[in-house]
C-alpha cells in the first residue's frame, strides 16, 4: 500500500518511512486503513491545515507516530495504561511514562484515534456512528469523545489496556462510559481519580487544603496502582519531571499564540489546535513536539517579517474558549468572515492561578488543577479569567464555542456568563453550541450565518468607535 506521500506530507523523511514501513503496515491493518483512506487523507489534510509550514507538518507527524505506538505497544512488549478524556490531570500519566519510558505506553486513546481518523483521514464520525448502536444512542447529547472511545473498542481499534485510570475530576460521563467498557466490553475495572466541584462562590482564590489533599491522594492512588503494573516506583521526582515537561510544552504553545498578538496574524489558529490537543496527552514524542513548536514559531516570525496576512489587518480580535480538534471549518469560516481568534482563554494563567499555598510536586499539581477555572467549571473564576485576558489582549469580543454534549461546559453556563461579560465588560459574546470531536450534528457550515453576523456586529462597533 502506498502512503509515502501521506507521511511526507506529515513531515517524515523518506528513510524514516522506510524504517517504519513494517510498523505502519501492521498498524494500518489493525485500523483497517486502505488506499481509499490514504487518498482522502491527502485531500483532507491540506484543507484542514497550512502544510506549507514545516512546523505544522511535524505536528501532524507526531499524531501519526503516537497512533502507531499505541497500536503496537502491546506486541512491542510494553504495558498499556490509559487515561480517559478529558485527560486531566495530565501529569498523572506523564509521570508514569517518565518513570519507565521503555516499559510502558500511556495514552488517552480516544484523542489519538479520533484526531487522526477525523482530521487527517477525514473519516468523520465513523466511530461515533458505531457507538450510537452500542449504548450511547444519538439525540441525548452523549459526549462524542466517549462515543469515539466506545466505537474504537467495539471496532477493536483500541487495544484493551493493562490499567485504565478514569479521570473523573470534573466530568461525569467519562466514568459512566468507562464503567460500561468494563462491565460490557471486557476492560479492566478502572481506578478513579475523583474530585468534588464544590468550591463556594467566594472561595475562588483561596482553595481549601482539604480539596488539594483529596485530589492529590486520588492521583497518588492511581500512581500506586500503576507502580504495581509496571514494577517501577513512581517518585515525586517523576511527578516533578512530568510537571516540568508539561510546562515546557505549554511554553511552546504560548509562544505560538504569541504570534497571534501581531496584527495581521501570520498563521491560522487552526494550526495551533493540534498542539493544544497533544499538549495534555502523555505522548512519547514530547521532545519532538517542543521542537515542532520552535520550528513553527520561527516560521511565524519570518511571515510577520514579510507582512504575511491570514486575515487583513485591522480585523476584530476575539478571545475564544476552545475549538474542534478534528475539523477546522469553523476557524476558516471565522477567518474568511474577517474575525481573528487570538487567545484561548483556558490557557491564560490568571493571578489566582499563580498563587502557591502548598509544597511538594503532588500537592502543587493538585492545586494547579483546582485553580483552573475551566476544569473546575466554576463561574467566578471564569469571570476573573475573562476579565484579565480581555484586558491583556484588549479583545473586541468573546467567541464562546462550547461542546454542547459536555455537562461541565453546560453547567459553566455560557448564557449566564454572556450576561456578565456584556454587562460588566461591555463585550459582545457569541455563544456557539458545537462539538469538538464530531461533525455529525454540528458542522461549521451550520453556524456560518451566525459567525458572519457576529463579525459584522464587531466591525460595526469598531466603526462606531472610530467615528
Amino acid at each position, binding site marked *: 500500500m502506498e502512503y509515502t506521500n501521506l507521511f511526507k506530507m506529515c513531515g517524515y523523511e523518506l528513510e524514516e518511512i522506510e524504517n517504519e514501513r513494517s510498523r505502519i503496515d501492521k498498524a494500518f491493518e489493525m485500523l483497517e486503513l486502505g488506499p481509499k483512506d490514504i487518498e482522502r487523507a491527502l485531500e483532507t489534510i491540506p484543507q484542514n491545515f497550512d502544510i506549507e509550514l514545516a512546523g505544522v507538518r511535524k505536528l501532524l507527524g507526531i499524531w501519526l507516530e503516537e497512533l502507531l505506538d499505541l497500536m503496537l505497544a502491546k506486541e512491542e512488549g510494553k504495558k498499556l495504561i490509559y487515561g480517559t478524556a478529558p485527560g486531566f490531570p495530565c501529569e498523572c500519566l506523564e509521570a508514569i511514562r517518565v518513570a519507565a519510558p521503555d516499559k510502558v505506553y500511556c495514552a488517552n486513546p480516544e484523542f489519538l484515534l479520533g484526531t487522526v481518523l477525523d482530521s487527517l483521514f477525514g473519516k468523520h464520525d465513523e466511530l461515533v456512528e458505531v457507538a450510537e448502536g452500542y449504548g450511547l444512542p*444519538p*439525540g441525548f447529547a452523549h459526549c462524542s469523545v466517549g462515543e469515539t472511545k466506545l466505537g474504537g473498542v467495539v471496532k477493536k481499534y483500541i487495544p484493551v489496556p493493562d490499567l485504565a485510570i478514569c479521570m473523573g475530576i470534573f466530568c461525569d460521563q467519562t466514568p459512566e462510559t468507562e464503567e460500561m467498557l468494563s462491565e460490557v466490553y471486557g476492560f479492566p475495572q478502572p481506578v478513579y481519580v475523583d474530585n468534588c466541584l464544590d468550591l463556594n462562590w467566594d472561595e475562588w482564590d483561596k482553595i481549601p487544603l482539604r480539596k488539594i489533599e483529596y485530589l492529590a491522594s486520588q492521583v497518588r492512588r492511581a500512581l500506586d496502582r500503576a507502580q504495581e503494573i509496571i514494577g517501577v516506583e513512581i517518585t515525586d521526582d517523576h511527578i516533578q519531571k512530568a510537571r516540568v515537561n508539561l510546562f515546557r510544552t505549554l511554553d511552546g504553545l504560548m509562544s505560538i499564540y504569541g504570534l497571534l498578538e501581531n496584527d495581521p496574524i501570520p498563521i491560522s489558529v487552526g494550526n495551533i489546535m493540534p498542539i493544544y490537543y497533544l499538549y495534555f496527552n502523555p505522548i512519547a514524542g514530547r521532545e519532538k513536539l517542543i521542537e515542532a513548536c520552535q520550528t513553527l514559531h520561527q516560521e511565524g516570525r519570518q511571515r510577520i517579517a514579510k507582512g504575511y496576512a491570514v486575515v487583513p489587518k485591522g480585523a476584530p480580535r476575539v478571545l475564544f474558549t476552545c475549538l474542534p480538534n478534528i475539523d477546522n471549518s469553523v476557524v476558516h469560516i471565522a477567518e474568511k*468572515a*474577517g474575525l481573528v481568534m487570538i487567545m484561548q482563554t483556558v490557557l491564560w494563567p490568571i493571578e489566582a492561578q499563580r498563587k502557591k499555598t502548598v509544597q511538594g510536586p503532588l500537592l502543587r499539581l493538585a492545586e494547579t488543577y483546582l485553580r483552573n477555572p475551566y476544569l473546575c467549571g466554576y463561574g467566578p473564576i471564569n469571570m476573573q479569567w475573562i476579565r484579565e485576558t480581555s484586558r491583556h489582549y484588549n479583545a473586541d469580543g468573546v467567541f464562546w464555542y462550547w461542546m454542547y454534549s459536555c455537562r461541565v461546559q453546560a453547567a459553566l453556563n455560557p448564557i449566564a456568563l454572556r450576561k456578565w461579560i*456584556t454587562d460588566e465588560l461591555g463585550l*459582545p459574546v*457569541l*455563544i456557539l*453550541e458545537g462539538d469538538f470531536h464530531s461533525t*455529525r*450534528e*454540528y458542522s461549521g*457550515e*451550520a*453556524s*456560518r*450565518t*451566525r459567525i458572519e*453576523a*457576529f463579525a*459584522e*456586529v464587531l*466591525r*460595526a462597533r469598531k*466603526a*462606531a468607535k472610530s*467615528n
Partner: protein
Amino acid sequence: MQAGEELSTHLRTRVIELTKMKGQGHKIIGYTPGGYMPEELLYACGAMPVPVGLIRGGEHEPVLVAGAYLPRWLDTFCRAQIGYKVLREEALYDLIDLLVVPVTDNNIRAIADCWNFYTDTEVFRFGVPHSKTDNGFQYYLEGINLLKEKLEQLTGTEITESRLREAINLCNRERELLSELSLMRKFERPPLSGRDFIELNHASFLADKKVMVEALQSFRAELKQKEAPVPGWPRILLTGSTLAFGDYKIYDLIEGAGASVVIEEFAEGVRHFSEVVHTDGALMEALADRYFVRRVPPAWFRPARERLDYLVKLAKDFNVNGVIWYQLMYRDSYDIESYYFPDILRSETGLSMLKIESDYDVSEIGPFRTRVETFIETIK
C-alpha cells in the same frame, strides 16, 4: 463569479455603511417579511429599509431563548425574532428606528407585539386583509397611505409623485432582473443553482438598490455566456411558509442528494419578483394593486386556493420532477393545506410531494437527510 465577489464585499461592509448613514441622520426602517411592505415608499422618503426577521433564521438558540418570552406554539421563525432581539446578535436589528409590521396572521403579529412589549422599539402596524375583495383592497390602500404619512412625518421628507415613481422604477428594474435570472432556471441545465439564486434574492433585501441592480445586470451577462455548471439533476419545486436568510439547510440537503431546486414559492423570506408595479395611473393604487391584488397570496388567505393553483402552474412551467414542501413548526395554515394539496398536485401533474417541518433544530438534520434522499431516489 466576479459579480459575486463585488456583491459580497458590498454586503460585508453594509452594516458599517448603514451605521454611518444612521449617524448622518438617515432613518433605518425595519419591516417583517411577507411581501406586503412596499419598499418603494421607504426609498421615496430617503429612509433605509432593513428587512427584520426575513434576514435571519435557521438557528436554534434564538428559538430557545424565545421560550422566556413566548410559548413555543407559534411559528418557529417568528419566535426566533424575539430571540435575536434579546440576544443582540444581529447588528441590523439594533439600527432600527421604526419597525413596520404589515399584520398578516397571529404569528407575524407576535413579532410586533413582543418587540413592543419587551423592547423600546417603535412599531407601526397596518393590516393585510385576507380576502381579495374591494373592501380588502380599500383597507390595504388606506393602510399604506397611513404608512406613507407615518414615514413622511418620521423622516420629514415628503413622498412626492416623482420620487415615488423613481423608486418604483428602480424596484421594478430589480424585479425584472431577478425574474430573468429565475427564468433561466427553466433550461434543462440551469446556469445557476437554487442556492445561488436564493442567496442573490436574499442579498436584494440588504444591498443598496443601485449596487444590487448593477450586480444583477453583470450576473445576467456572466450567466449568458456561462457553461451551465448544474448537471441534469431531478428538478425540484421548493415551497413553504418562510425561507429565512441563513436557513439553507434544506438547499444543502437537496443539492447534496443530487437534485436541484429550479423554482421557489414562499410566503415570507424571498422577494416576489414576478409582478411589477404599473406606473401609469395613481401610484398608491398601483402599489396596492401590485402588493395586494396581483401578489400570489399566502396560505392564510381566505380562500387560498389561488396559491395552490399557482404552484401547479409553476410545477408545469418549470417542468419539475417533484415538490418539496418546507415549512416551519406550528404554522398551521400550511399544515392544513399540506394535507389536501398532494392530491391536487397528483391529479393535475402526476407529481409527488415531500413535506418537511423544521423547528430550526440541529438534531433534525439526520432524519431530514434520509427523507430527502429517499424522496429524490423515488422521483429520479
